């Protein structure tokens, strides 16, 4: 028999919370500020811990703060702290896709660069890189389709060409890129198969016709001219996509794209390095791969610092709460991998240490994507952050009721209409 709600003890935790929270209905005055007052950021210094965004508990002001303003337990202007923004609907499938797609593009880029710049010495990098790129690309379309609420309509994504939205441009890029990656895998496979046979025993007529066509210099040049830009897009568009949202964590952050690009290259290098070690290939290319990895890690850490600095308070979902451990792990694993690579060890230990460092780097890349996606969920659920992201950024505007450089569709297309709408 359940206890009647009326008989619940008044000192129950929920009742305590209710008693000590500031009255959400209490305001300091009913006098509404004039619209011009919104030009200045409102004082919103009391804030919620972002992991309990929907909980109503706020610390009460103490001492001088309370004496100065007896009404200071009035909540800042808000609608009962019901979140203003919608949480993103993207779940683990998208975080995994962001990771695998980036890794694939990074591995493909390194494979092509090793082929172009490295020549025969780095043939193993270009070969393994092509395979890694294809292996990590294959799960991406199923993940994307899975994420859609209605999987049978994935082809609607390719219904229009709309480069102004990163999701459409990215979908077309990944379609084009997958063609390039497939080309490269077939070429590498045929080359490998032909190399297995003693080359001297092959006559000119025995050589694979398809491989000869694929190795054509002009065709390869065209392939790279298209493949490298498309794979750069696949590596970085995901970050730009996130930055083109109203989510407090991601909104307009210019470091997200570079961060994802750098992470794509570093995880690509690590995956190739790990695959080479696992397959027991000659470690001739390992030092170059490790140095590329280090450069990408440096770029990644710099972008993460820039991201944090740009987002400021809005990056709090990464700094506390559920995503803190993922964020800290991604930073720690990058530093840890770099330290591991530089520890002087015996030659027989070199390979296992390198493999551990590569695995750490791969885990860091995944953890970063995970924290970024699910941190966005926390950020959107935090009513304080949604108020912060919609604070006025330029207070010199709107003194006369409108804003310079704004105006939208009407102002761009119809000067008369906007003139009419703004003359009051």
């Amino acid at each position, binding site marked *: 028999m359940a206890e009647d709600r009326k008989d619940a003890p008044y000192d129950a935790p929920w009742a305590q919370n209710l008693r000590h929270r500031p009255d959400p209905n209490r305001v300091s005055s009913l006098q509404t500020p004039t619209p011009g007052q*919104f030009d200045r950021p409102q004082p919103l210094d009391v804030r919620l811990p972002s992991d309990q965004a929907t909980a109503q508990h706020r610390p009460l002001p103490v001492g001088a703060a309370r004496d100065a303003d007896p009404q200071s337990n009035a909540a800042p202007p808000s609608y009962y702290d019901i979140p203003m923004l919608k949480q993103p609907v993207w779940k683990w499938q998208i975080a995994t896709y962001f990771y695998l797609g980036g890794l694939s593009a990074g591995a493909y880029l390194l494979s092509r660069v090793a082929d172009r710049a490295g020549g025969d010495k780095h043939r193993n990098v270009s070969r393994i890189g092509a395979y890694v790129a294809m292996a990590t690309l294959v799960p991406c379309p199923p993940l994307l389709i899975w994420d859609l609420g209605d999987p049978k309509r994935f082809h609607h994504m390719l219904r229009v060409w709309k480069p102004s939205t990163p999701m459409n441009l990215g979908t077309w890029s990944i379609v084009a890129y997958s063609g390039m990656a497939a080309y490269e895998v077939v070429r590498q496979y045929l080359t490998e198969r032909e190399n297995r046979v003693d080359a001297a025993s092959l006559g000119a007529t025995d050589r694979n016709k398809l491989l000869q066509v694929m190795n054509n210099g002009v065709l390869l040049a065209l392939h790279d001219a298209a493949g490298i830009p498309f794979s750069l897009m696949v590596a970085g568009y995901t970050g730009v996509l996130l930055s083109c949202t109203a989510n407090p964590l991601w909104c307009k952050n210019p470091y997200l794209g570079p961060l994802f690009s750098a992470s794509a290259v570093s995880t690509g290098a690590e995956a190739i390095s790990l695959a080479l070690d696992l397959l027991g290939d000659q470690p001739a290319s390992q030092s170059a791969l490790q140095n590329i990895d280090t450069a990408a890690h440096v770029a990644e850490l710099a972008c993460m610092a820039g991201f944090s600095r740009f987002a400021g308070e809005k990056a709090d979902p990464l700094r506390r709460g559920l995503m803190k451990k993922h964020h800290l792990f991604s930073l720690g694993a990058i530093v840890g991998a770099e330290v591991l690579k530089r520890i002087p060890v015996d030659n027989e230990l070199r390979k296992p240490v390198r493999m551990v460092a590569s695995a750490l780097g791969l885990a860091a890349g995944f953890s970063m994507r995970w924290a970024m996606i699910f941190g966005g969920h926390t950020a959107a659920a935090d009513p304080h952050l949604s108020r912060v992201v919609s604070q006025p950024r330029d207070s010199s505007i709107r003194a006369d009721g*409108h804003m310079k450089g704004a105006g939208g569709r009407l102002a761009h297309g119809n000067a008369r209409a906007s003139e009419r709408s703004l003359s009051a």
Partner: protein
Amino acid sequence: MTLQLPILNRGIGGALRDAAHDAVVNFPNAFPPVRLPVPQPDDSRQLSQIMGFFTDTTLCIGCKACEVACKQWNQLPSDGFEFTANSYDNTKHLGATTWRHVAFKEQIAGDGDGTDAVSRWLMMSDVCKHCDEAPCQHSCPTGAIIYNNFGDVYVQNDICNGCGYCVAACPFGVIGRADEQHDDGHAHKCTLCMDRQEEGMTPACAKVCPTSSIQFGPLDQLRDAARQRVGDLKDRGNDRAYLYGCDSVGDYGPLNAFFLLEDHPNSYNLPVDPPQPFRGQKARYAASLGVGALLVGVAAALFGGARHG
């Protein structure tokens, strides 16, 4: 974490049969006939042809008739009968199945003991703003979200594929994606009753509003009426009233659905300065591709250097 794949329930054969059937049945929907020329963002259009809402919150009595009428006309499911525990609000926010939401805001000022306390009750019927340069329309990768022939933002449900980008892009938190387990999994929001407008009728919420708090009409007339209303209120001594969205708000031009408010926008869960997330997109692409190209250059130098060194 449980894996919920339809394929596990129906078996692979059944899933394949279903997918083939759906593909055949839905294929024509992917390429719908174009009935009317769709206005493009740069079309020069007359304001008198663009229809919109003016919601005067000083007239709202919180009867929720607009919510009910909207749900009835558009055949939307109930939101349940759970109040927020702060006031009489049971819908909390706009969403995939809530296209009108009446916000109730109770405010008390003065002494805590209530002897000389003054109180007021702010009520506002919130709705999709039908932005002039809508981020949901901008973000939609399938072209499902368009400006319709009345100049309003409209989601074509047979085109929407449920990617959820518009949900993250909307700075007002308006558009939502329906539950994919129990519903169609597509994005939905206010259509400004496009079907009624095509028949020359008023949208359901404006039609039913008993106090004319919700007014519907061509934008030029609505804006004139709204400015007149603010002037009247000021003449009567209510200097709290101001218009939100009648002129530009933040990065946005005038909104097609705008409001007369009496308190800070945040009190109604409206953003003070909604960001336009697609501004500066090209620079962000350039930074992303630039860092990628830089690292490719480093890789080329390292691979090439190792060859020669």
